[in-house]
């Protein structure tokens, strides 16, 4: 898997998005972490070409262009979908460590 250098955090609800981005910046100081409103997700993907996207609803563009993504609590459901290096899996009750493990 190619090393992740840019992370785009674009999940819904501002304080949740800001918190996850802040934790990622602290935990992964060598990476660049960007935040975007979900409405701007596709535009930011094309601008930044992130290695990892965290969002509430994955788009066809993300599926096609981003090697690693996490669809976090879509429609406020408890399960989330991970795509890591092309391999997809679903996880219930995601922990913060699950998010960090994708990069680590």
């Amino acid at each position, binding site marked *: 898997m190619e090393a992740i250098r840019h992370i785009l955090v674009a999940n819904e*609800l501002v*304080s*949740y998005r800001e918190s*996850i981005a*802040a*934790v990622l910046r602290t935990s992964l100081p060598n990476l660049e972490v960007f935040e975007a409103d979900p409405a701007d997700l596709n535009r930011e993907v094309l601008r930044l070409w992130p290695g990892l996207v965290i969002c509430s609803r994955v788009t066809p563009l993300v599926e096609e262009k981003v090697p690693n993504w996490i669809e976090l609590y879509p429609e*406020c459901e408890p399960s989330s979908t991970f795509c890591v290096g092309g391999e997809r899996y679903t996880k219930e009750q995601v*922990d*913060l460590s*699950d998010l960090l493990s994708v990069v680590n």
Partner: protein
Amino acid sequence: MLRPVGGGSTNLADERPPHRRSGRLRVLLANEPRSYRESIAAVFRQLRPELDVEVAEPEDLESSVSRSPPDVAICSRVTGGVRDLVPVWVELYPGHSARSVAFERGERTEYAEIQLGDLLSVLDRAAGAA
């Protein structure tokens, strides 16, 4: 499951309530879902290391508050115990809506889209008032 962090020694001569004998403001996070709760707790611990930040599952909120009321509670659905025993609380995105409510010592504030900075401000005001 309550996970206390930090704390301090208990002084038997201290007349403060048991939950404040450490002298540190106690913040209890019981919002859902879990990774968001853990992320906010991690940020609070990083940016406000002087606070005692605890996390609890939402279903354990009422018992945690009854056992040892925190100074500040942040939850997805405020409970009777929180209303009665906690001086400062934030109902964060109830029903997964963007709206949130903060209650600070009798004063209620509604947020259309609360931000991390708003939550930190609530903590700072609570620490200032404690």
